[in-house]
């Protein structure tokens, strides 16, 4: 199999054809098929579930507190008597919406800056990398918590915040990928022709690091989901009564000994989405001919 990075160097095929080829490649692997299927299912549920959920997600009932799963309430009810099936179906919407917008933002600005500084090198590059290192040496949870406390946790604020902070590690990845390309003949030739830096970036560098950036984007997506739901879990994210998996798990922990279903349903929801994204990212990396297993865990 010729890896797709070779075709990217040529950069001839139209985008749609390439996307179809990549998706076909992902789906041809069992793990990729499962992962991709899970992601598609979750996106479908996030969009469509408001139209067919059986109950109102914020309808509180004192009689229905912590009921076991039954024919009326498939996954039982929570400590306020709300239907857990309904809330689990809706619980990923906010997280998916915020992270699906923030991921392209992070990859775009981080990727551009990384490519730019990978090409320029020199003093600016040194200084920038020190700043990037400094940010990376702070635990992500601390950075996110401070950001949420300073700027607030509504989705209008979370999207740019996540988009900004999760773009910082992308700078590093894009810069390293650029270094691999910069010394190749066609870039040297473009420089010798005296082309402008922006032209070199747009025509020669970006098409060649795009594969790496896409895989990186898929990974960032799953890290962002993790951060988003961790914040909700810690009580710094989504505010009640909005259904959210992290919040639901946090709420149900006190009743776990007699109502384990209240915790299990959101656990399954969140886990299946994150596993789905990771399996897809893995298959994507293989389809692109990039070995992701070599990359660092952060």
């Amino acid at each position, binding site marked *: 199999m010729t890896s797709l990075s070779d075709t990217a160097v040529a950069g001839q095929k139209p985008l749609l054809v390439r996307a179809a080829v990549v998706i076909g490649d992902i789906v041809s692997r069992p793990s990729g098929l499962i992962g991709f299927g899970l992601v598609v299912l979750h996106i479908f549920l996030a969009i469509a579930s408001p139209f067919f959920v059986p109950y109102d997600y914020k309808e509180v009932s004192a009689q229905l507190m912590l009921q076991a799963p039954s024919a009326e309430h498939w996954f039982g009810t929570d400590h306020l008597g709300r239907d857990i099936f309904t809330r689990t179906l809706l619980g990923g919407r906010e997280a998916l919406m915020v992270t699906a917008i923030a991921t392209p933002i992070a990859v775009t600005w981080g990727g551009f800056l990384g490519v730019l500084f990978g090409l320029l090198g020199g003093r600016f590059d040194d200084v920038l*990398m*020190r*700043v990037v*290192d*400094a*940010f990376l*040496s*702070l*635990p*992500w*949870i*601390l950075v996110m*918590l*401070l*950001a949420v*406390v*300073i700027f607030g946790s509504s989705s209008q604020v979370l999207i740019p915040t996540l988009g900004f902070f999760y773009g910082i590690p992308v700078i590093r990845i894009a810069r390293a990928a650029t*270094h691999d390309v910069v010394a190749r003949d066609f870039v040297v030739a473009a420089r010798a022709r005296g082309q402008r830096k922006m032209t070199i970036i747009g025509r020669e560098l970006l098409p060649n690091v795009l594969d790496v950036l896409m895989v990186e984007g898929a990974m960032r997506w*799953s890290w962002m989901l*993790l951060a988003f*739901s*961790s914040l909700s*879990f*810690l009580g*710094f994210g989504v505010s009640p009564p909005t259904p959210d998996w*992290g919040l639901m*798990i*946090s709420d149900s*922990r006190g009743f*776990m*000994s007699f109502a*384990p279903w209240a*915790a*299990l349903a959101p*656990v399954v929801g*969140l*886990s299946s989405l*994150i*596993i789905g994204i*990771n*399996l897809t990212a*893995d298959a994507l990396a293989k389809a692109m001919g990039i*070995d992701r*297993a*070599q990359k*660092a*865990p*952060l």
Partner: protein
Amino acid sequence: MIQLLLRRLFLGLITIGLVSGIIFVSVEALPGDSCTAFLEREAEGKRLENCRNDLGLNRPAAVRYFDWAGRALQGDFGVSANGTKSIADMVGTRLRNSLVLALASLIIGIPLAIFLGIVTALWRDRQLDLWISTIAIFAMTIPEFVSATVLILIFSVWLGWLPGIVIAPAHAPISQLLPEVILPIIAISMVMTAHMLRMVRTSVIEVMASDYVQMARLKGVPYWQMVFRHVLPNALLPAINVIALTVAWLLGGVVVIEVVFNYPGLGRLMIDAISDRDLPVVQAIALILALIYVGVNLSADLLTMIANPRLRTLHTRKS
């Protein structure tokens, strides 16, 4: 080698300097200050003025930064906002508890990850490898608070083997923490092992495909001798840096795990401090965490250099 080491040390110091700046600025940006947090509703007019004068909050930000950084260098983090408790004392016991948790997880996680990584690499794509690798993907991708919750559900609620939350106070001796700390240790080492296992596996597979291993194979070196003499020493060297990166992850993940298990460590103190707007405490913890991160990375570089003769003569390394 000395030169390279000094260069690394210098870069590490610059990073710390920048981090302290970032922390100071972002904590400054938090709404309110120590005085509004301390006085709460009475925070107005003369009282606020006096309080700010007492704590020196009226001085320009730059002056306060250097004052804070200078004291922090001497291990003096000042007093917490809501009282007269010394932050150094408060953070000290919490740091000890977090270190107990982290070290125990590392002691379990590192050997386990290396062993499983080698096993999965040598029996690559066989049944055993597929099972272990799949479980590893699950363990490393599921958020810590989810896997921790599931662990509590299984081992504490259903089986009743281990306590689900920690009730020992922060300053309790380690022996008192012992039964309660087991589940948090399992939760952390699970994720950590999964990360490291994947790296070790890739590294071993790469070395197995290298020219010198092919050569050894062609020369007729017995399989296990080849594995132990040629493959492992070369494959495990990069693992040092992976472990360093994992420790860095640990600093973030531990925070969530500590909250789930109500463990009195640095992470939970940080969450409490952020909720209470106890800014001096937040600053101190952030600085300590960053110091640990840079320190761990530096020592990983040092270890790699000592273990790898090729790097000793090299002056610069591609980052």
